[in-house]
């Protein structure tokens, strides 16, 4: 396994010796109580939102509000499901864009990471910095020229177009991650493959890919979460109601008529938009946090 998934940087098994902190039993209780309080505080908004989404619409709009629902109903989810072109259209759009973003990122970052980690290329550092530098450019500033360019290329309102924008955002980090992944592989493995007469592409496919798979999972995970959540580019590039993504749909739900917002439906929408991210995070937690750290600490 590469350094990316090393246990020292794993959120679930964060391995720090208790002695670093030290402290007596009473301090231990205090720490425990604080942890519980923080868990409650951090979870409260999501739990309250979830409960509100299960209230019948009239109850969700009641003034003053109640913390807990008195009766349960799925009516808010039905409202969201039938919102304009229908929730599934938006979920499908978001999924397609996210999938394309993942594919683009992998297609570009895997070979680039391989090249940067393993090849002697002239101006390698310059190229690497060039790719990373786009991380420093406020992407919101780029939306205008990109928009004009995409409207000439007929890429506005297309999944591919938005996926390209999301790839722009995610590429630097992806290349960085993949380079680190490839660097973590021992050279001996590669040499052995060369001895066996493998070509460069064969080495990449047979030797490296299985080993950098964790890195690729991390890249995909980040690309998915970023793309699923991204708002301003989706807002500008997708102007047809059938091409909206989930966050854009959410803002539609949130604007009511003369300030009359359907709060229950809005919270149902929030929950729908949040669940995939939380699910993916909980499933692939180790990849997420390790990826974040390998990008951060070096």
């Amino acid at each position: 396994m590469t350094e990316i998934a090393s246990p020292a940087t794993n959120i679930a098994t964060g391995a720090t010796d208790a002695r670093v902190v030290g402290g007596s039993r009473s301090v231990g209780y205090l720490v425990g109580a604080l942890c519980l309080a923080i868990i409650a505080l951090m979870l409260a908004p999501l739990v309250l939102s979830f409960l509100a989404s299960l209230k019948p619409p009239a109850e969700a709009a009641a003034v003053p509000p109640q913390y807990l629902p008195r009766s349960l109903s799925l009516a808010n989810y039905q409202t969201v499901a039938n919102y304009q072109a229908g929730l599934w259209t938006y979920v499908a759009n978001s999924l397609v864009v996210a999938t394309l973003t993942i594919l683009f990122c992998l297609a570009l970052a895997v070979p680039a990471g391989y090249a940067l980690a393993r090849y002697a290329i002239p101006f390698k550092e310059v190229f690497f910095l060039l790719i990373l530098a786009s991380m420093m450019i406020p992407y919101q500033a780029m939306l205008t020229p990109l928009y004009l360019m995409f409207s000439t290329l007929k890429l506005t309102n297309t999944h591919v177009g938005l996926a390209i924008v999301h790839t722009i955002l995610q590429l630097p980090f992806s290349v960085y991650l993949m380079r680190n992944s490839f660097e973590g592989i021992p050279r001996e493995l590669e040499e052995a493959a060369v001895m066996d007469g493998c070509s460069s592409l064969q080495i990449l496919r047979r030797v490296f890919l299985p080993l950098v798979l964790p890195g690729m999972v991390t890249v995909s995970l980040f690309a998915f979460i970023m793309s699923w959540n991204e708002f301003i580019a989706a807002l500008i590039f997708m102007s047809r109601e059938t091409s909206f993504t989930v966050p854009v749909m959410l803002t539609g739900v949130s604007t009511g008529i003369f300030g009359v917002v359907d709060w229950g439906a809005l919270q149902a929408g929030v929950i729908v938009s949040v669940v995939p991210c939380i699910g993916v995070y909980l499933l692939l937690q180790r990849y997420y946090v390790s990826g974040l750290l390998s990008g951060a600490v070096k």
Partner: protein
Amino acid sequence: MRRSKTLAVALPLVAAGLTAMMTTTAFAQNLSMWVRESAADPGQLMVDLWNQTHEAQIELTAIPDNQLVTKLATSVRAGDAPDLISFDLIYMPDFMRAGFLADLTDQLSSDPNYETHVEAYKDIATYEDRIYGVGFTPDVSILVWNKELFREAGLDPDVPPKTIYEIHEMATQIGALGDDTYGFYFAGSCPGCNIFVTSPLMVAGGAHILPRNGEDAALEGEAVRVVLDEYRMMWEEGLIPESAEVDAGENFVSAFTAGNIGIAGSGGFLLSLMERQFPEFDYGVGLLPGLEEGQVSAFVGGDVVAIPTGGANEEVAREFVTWVLSDEAQLEGLAKNAILTTRTDLADNEYFAGNEKVQKTAEALAVGYVPWVFHFADMVNSDSSPWINMLQQAIFDGDVDGAIEEARARMLQIASE
């Protein structure tokens, strides 16, 4: 060899192109139409009526208000606009000048129904003598007063204020009723609300508010100063609730329906809202007055319908525009649903008969104005516009003359862009 290869590539391309064209025509029966969210309900009523009686079906999509014009502009640029659009009439000049809308002059100038179309809509949808749209779902500002409070204050509940000075006088009497009762209300941080209900007071008094270009008059006329000054005095005398200063529109409607406000500006939409939510509320509807008795005005708002250029279904879209002005659409689509008609000759119809309030509102529509300017969003609607800054500086900070002067300079600067 080479030729056959080219052919092999070209043939499927042509085939694909043909299929694409065929599928386009196959779907041509369905028209797409955008409407801003806050006008979606009346828009849907109209579209439903059309769909019942026509073969070509229209699919309506509601777009959040603050995104509609952006989406429209970007979609036209990307060649991806809907067949029909219903949007805030105030953006008409910008879109007409940009050449985004189909010219409807030929079909409308020969249409007898267009002759009785509300003047304000004709005005806003005409650019260099060409017509680009018609009023779709109208709205107009009115004056409302709480008859219950009028009675308590010893005022005649059937006689509304006829000048801005009378508004102030009556507000004083109502304000004297108690700590929780106020004579007047306006949403002090809401630029849109005030161009809707405050600017007509100035216009009725003979003022010219917004400049059409850098050389035009801006905030010209005594009435601008008088109205601001009367507002300022009412504010300083405590006749307006303190919460008004920060109201960005949230309480524009609910402040009056709460029942402790004597007089306020409002819109035609209030009528149906009252009927649904507060059927017992005893209030009167009148026209927004000016400086002298007999001076009245209103701000004509609501949506216009127009056709973005380059749509595949322009023929049917044009039919729809003509249909909007027909007796059927006006009476069965609008009047029947308690929405104002956009033709003045139909304002007196069976559905409005006996409803004094609706008739009064229709009257306001006929006398109302709409400012024909570019950059309306920049000049008025934005949260940092010269319009809202002027109101706040004059009324809450007390500097009426300075406020007008500053706003005038900025308006002219924006207009000259």
